[in-house]
């Protein structure tokens, strides 16, 4: 701290060779330039660029009469298996297509392609989540039929994808019983952002220490409106309710509403 005037912030100091007579504001070697900076007040939304891309995706979905669901979870929760099963079981009933997101490999896209559904793989490299602009590129490549239900399988990660609107109608968070019933408390942002929680692998409940009711209560503590379905993508239990949820088109509230509430 300067003992002459009490100013504290050395980061503001600029040293300049002075010419002419000594001014009133310099003392010793400590020079003040009170006017050497100006402050600009702003309201710049850091995610504005992503949100604009998301709005473009949303407009595309509306024009094409498409619905899009953003599937999010930690790695290994069974998202791809659930999609394989869903695409096979509902094939012929409604047009569906998939955008796969992973850091590396075409593995998941190959699995989806085997069901006959159109699929595009997005590899993010070091990226830990999909962003709206990436999805836009994927959609251009996908060329899904009008009226399609688009499943976006996000990068397996319960943190980062919560923050990035892709233009989807809803986020669906998949949680498997092998992961533990305390996931909602540990990753609250994702459970707050999701419309529906799917508790997967319930066929394994007899072998693991997972309290379904405690898990649901924890999720609703964070997000009182979250809907919940319990199922087993491999054994088939609970899938009928999931298919009803998809058919019912309960996708009426765009995800952007939540963001607008605080804008």
């Amino acid at each position, binding site marked *: 701290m300067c003992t002459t005037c009490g100013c504290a912030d050395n980061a*503001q100091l600029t040293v300049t060779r002075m010419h002419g007579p000594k001014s009133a504001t310099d003392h010793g070697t400590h020079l003040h330039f009170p006017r050497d900076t100006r402050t*600009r007040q702003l*309201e*710049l939304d*850091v995610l504005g660029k992503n949100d604009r891309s998301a709005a473009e995706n949303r407009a595309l979905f509306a024009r094409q009469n498409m619905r899009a669901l953003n599937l999010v979870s930690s790695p290994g929760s069974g998202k791809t298996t659930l999609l394989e099963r869903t695409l096979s079981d509902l094939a012929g009933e409604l047009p569906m297509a998939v955008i796969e997101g992973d850091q590396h490999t075409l593995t998941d896209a190959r699995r989806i392609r085997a069901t006959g559904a159109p699929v595009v793989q997005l590899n993010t490299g070091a990226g830990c989540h999909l962003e709206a602009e990436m999805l836009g590129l994927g959609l251009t490549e996908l060329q899904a039929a009008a009226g399609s239900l688009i499943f976006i399988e996000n990068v397996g990660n319960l*943190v980062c994808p919560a*923050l990035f609107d892709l233009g989807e109608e809803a986020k669906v968070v998949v949680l498997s019983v092998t992961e533990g019933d305390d996931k909602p408390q540990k990753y609250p942002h994702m459970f707050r952002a999701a419309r529906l929680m799917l508790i997967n692998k319930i066929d394994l409940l007899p072998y693991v220490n997972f309290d379904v009711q405690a898990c649901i209560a924890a999720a609703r503590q964070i997000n*009182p409106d979250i809907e919940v379905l319990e199922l087993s993508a491999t054994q088939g239990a609970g899938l009928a309710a999931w298919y009803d949820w998809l058919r019912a088109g309960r996708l009426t509230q765009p995800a952007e509403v939540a*963001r607008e509430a*605080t804008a």
Partner: protein
Amino acid sequence: MHELSICRNIVELAQQHADGCQVQRLQLAVGKLTAVMPDALKFCFEALSQGTLLADARLEIMEIDGLAQCAVCGLDFTMPVSGARCACGATAYRILTGQELKITELELKRELS
């Protein structure tokens, strides 16, 4: 590590609004309900600001508490990350603050003549 791509946006946006001047200080509003870690932002900012108008900029982060308004009784109440309900028992609410992620101030160096 979504803070990396968020920081890329911050540096890009700030440069667009800096009028070509060096930025001395950048103030950021970060809501506590946004899943963004201030320390991770600072770490990424150090790396990404190099060679830009923000190379010497100090990153100042204002954390904003979560606040919600009860949809039933209208009372405002604190919304922690872990979730909360209104004292009246209602679970329907509207988030008022805590989801901000904005650049709120740029301090720009003037060219000294």
